[in-house]
């Protein structure tokens, strides 16, 4: 029989890192509080036991403040576990021990305690008497360094022992069922109780600490720069600017390599004489063009993720909250709301989930409404295609190039409008005070190359998986729609009779004022399922079209060259603007609906994004046509 074991502990103590080590999973690990917002589980075996380990959101106490902490309490109360592994940050003993005592009192299950980050504690010269601590707490304590795997085996051995003892006890006497009551009585009483608890924890820590460690002066020193009134913002801007430059300049070589690999594959397929023309078109114009057209953007996406992973692991995120809290206050939110917004630059869905860490309901709604305007990584392929086609890559000063700047500009415009919308919402529809801000600034940790590499590989795999499933399927569908029904022999422009063209022509009148023709309109429809499909859809459409025309196979052009010839600059700009605002990606809207628990808000989201997209594309096109 499989037993269920919960990982419980204060935020940022390394629960997810330990979970990943024990179960070989890939839970998100980052150096700030509130990374894990939902429970996650995985099976593993130890000492011939089959077990399920459950990674939980961190909490400072059993008095939930936010929804993610509520998840922890609800699960503990529901008797869902047979044992607990408590994780304590060894460099923050008092706080961790206090929570351990609270959990042990309310939920007296078989428990072992992982004294995690023992490597950091050692480096700062803490000397902890583990034996003593274990006696005083009444549960085995094992020093661990989760990221390195140190102490994990020992921890599991101790867990096994505790479970065996428990088994013996059960035969003789019944264990008390956990009460798990958390009284919310008179505030002063609650405060007094916490203080008393803390004092007791403090005594335990004092008597088991042979030598208190040094303060983390290194982090304080780094903070003097990173949080400096002048240098701080400057450092942040340079890191951002550099990343966008790298996205265009460094990514170029691997992108060309991927591109050539796919063109080589296409020419190989075309020379296979035993395949009929139809099959060749399916393989080359459908699969290879679509998949290759999306996959080329992998290097750029990885560069962006490298930045995000580095900043997260280094410990910058909480500092960003601190630096930006004042500006978030102007929007009517507090700095914490910045974390979900930031993770939305990877993908909106985890961003929406991360809003669980926001305590005020109204603030949470406002944040979710802002999220779709944060530039998610699925927009990168579209932006890159349009920028490299329509923006000349002139050198400005000091090797700074225009394309990278325009990319940064698109991010800035999206984010700016996001904040504007948030401010208006808070001002007119979601009025209300913001709760106090209280966020821990964790010690800086130098990210290990291994964890960065593993994070990147994981991200890369996710993207390739997405290309291989959703995007491939949609591309095949599009190939079918642009290829059938076949035009009568000798027709000038065979694609015109296809399903896609028929449908595209139907919506064309709506899109004309924005400068979009039927092909763009046709490609925009599947982009609602996944933004990147815009690129593969256009690639496929133009590939099928040119295959049908007089052009020789060898003259097939890259998509960016095709659209450069066929579209006006105004159309290109207008489409960029459309992609900043358009309410795309159905899964984002579905997730938002689920988390908001309201159809109305979700509908309002789609509506306002659509209005923004249509009006600004319209303005961009009309102005650009006149002036450029």
């Amino acid at each position: 029989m499989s037993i269920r074991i919960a990982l419980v502990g204060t935020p940022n103590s390394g629960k997810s890192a330990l979970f990943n080590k024990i179960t070989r999973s890939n839970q998100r690990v980052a150096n700030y509080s509130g990374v894990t917002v939902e429970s996650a589980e995985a099976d593993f075996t130890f000492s011939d036991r089959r077990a399920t380990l459950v990674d939980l959101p961190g909490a400072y106490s059993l008095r939930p403040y936010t929804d993610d902490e509520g998840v922890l309490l609800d699960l503990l109360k529901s008797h869902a576990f047979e044992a607990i592994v408590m994780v304590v940050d060894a460099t923050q003993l008092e706080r961790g021990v206090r929570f351990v005592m609270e959990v042990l009192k309310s939920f007296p299950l078989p428990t072992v305690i992982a004294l995690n980050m023992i490597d950091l504690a050692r480096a700062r010269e803490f000397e902890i008497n583990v034996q003593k601590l274990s006696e005083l707490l009444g549960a085995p304590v094992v020093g661990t360094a989760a990221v390195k795997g140190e102490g994990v085996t020992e921890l599991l051995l101790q867990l096994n022992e505790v479970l065996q003892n428990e088994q013996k006890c059960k035969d003789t006497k019944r264990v008390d069922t956990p009460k798990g009551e958390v009284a919310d009585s008179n505030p002063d009483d609650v405060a007094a109780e916490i203080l008393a608890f803390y004092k007791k924890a403090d005594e335990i820590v004092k008597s088991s600490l042979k030598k208190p460690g040094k303060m983390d002066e290194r982090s304080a020193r780094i903070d003097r720069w990173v949080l400096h009134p002048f240098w701080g913002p400057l450092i942040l801007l340079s890191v951002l600017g550099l990343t966008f430059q790298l996205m265009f300049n460094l990514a170029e070589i691997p992108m060309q390599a991927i591109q050539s690999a796919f063109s080589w594959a296409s020419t190989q397929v075309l020379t296979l004489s035993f395949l009929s023309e139809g099959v060749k078109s399916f393989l080359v114009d459908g699969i290879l063009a679509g998949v290759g057209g999306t996959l080329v953007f992998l290097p750029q996406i990885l560069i962006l993720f490298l930045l995000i992973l580095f900043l997260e692991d280094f410990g910058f995120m909480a500092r960003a909250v601190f630096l930006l809290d004042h500006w978030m206050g102007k929007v009517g939110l507090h700095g914490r709301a910045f974390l979900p917004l930031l993770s939305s630059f990877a993908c909106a869905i985890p961003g929406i989930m991360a809003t669980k860490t926001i305590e005020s309901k109204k603030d949470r709604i406002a944040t979710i409404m802002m999220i779709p305007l944060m530039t998610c990584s699925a927009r990168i392929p579209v932006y890159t295609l349009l920028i490299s086609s329509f923006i000349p890559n002139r050198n400005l000063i000091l090797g700074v190039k225009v394309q990278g700047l325009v990319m940064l500009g698109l991010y800035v415009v999206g984010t700016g409008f996001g904040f504007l919308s948030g401010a208006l919402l808070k001002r007119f529809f979601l009025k209300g005070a913001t709760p106090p801000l209280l966020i821990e600034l964790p010690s800086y940790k130098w990210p290990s190359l291994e964890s960065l590499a593993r994070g990147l590989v994981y991200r890369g795999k996710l993207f390739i998986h997405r290309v291989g499933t959703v995007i491939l399927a949609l591309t095949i569908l599009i190939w079918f729609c642009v290829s059938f029904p076949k035009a009568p022999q000798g027709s000038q422009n065979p694609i015109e009779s296809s399903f896609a063209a028929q449908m595209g022509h139907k919506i064309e009148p709506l899109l004309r004022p924005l400068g979009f023709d039927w092909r763009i309109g046709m490609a925009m429809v599947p982009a609602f399922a996944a933004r990147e499909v815009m690129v593969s859809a256009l690639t496929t459409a133009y590939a099928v079209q040119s295959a049908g025309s007089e052009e020789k196979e060898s003259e097939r052009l890259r998509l960016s060259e095709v659209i450069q010839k066929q579209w006006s600059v105004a159309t290109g700009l207008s489409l960029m603007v459309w992609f900043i605002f358009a309410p795309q990606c159905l899964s984002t809207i579905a997730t938002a609906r689920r988390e908001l628990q309201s159809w109305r808000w979700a509908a309002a989201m789609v509506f306002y994004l659509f209005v923004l997209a249509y009006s600004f594309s319209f303005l961009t096109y009309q102005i650009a046509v006149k002036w450029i």
Partner: protein
Amino acid sequence: MNLNKEVVNLPVPLGTLSPGQHAEINSFNGANGKQGDELQWRNRFLYRLHEMGFIPGERVEILNEAPLSGDPITVRIRNGVYAMRREDANSVLVFVRDEA
């Protein structure tokens, strides 16, 4: 003489200190007429502070203040550093102390 010392030793709100100043926690402010959600938040904020080790007698140090606005501030207590707004920090009353 005695009177003077009294004045020097009057507790001040934590949020009024500047980076580099050290202090010792004395007590916590009342609810100041807050109601409903705001009262709830303020209570939970205090609980959380206690849970993080903000208890009477504990030493704190202000490390940084945010650029331009000077708000929020970062407060070091024991081995933890926390960011909070000055207004909220004012519910903690402290004695200013020299560096230990």
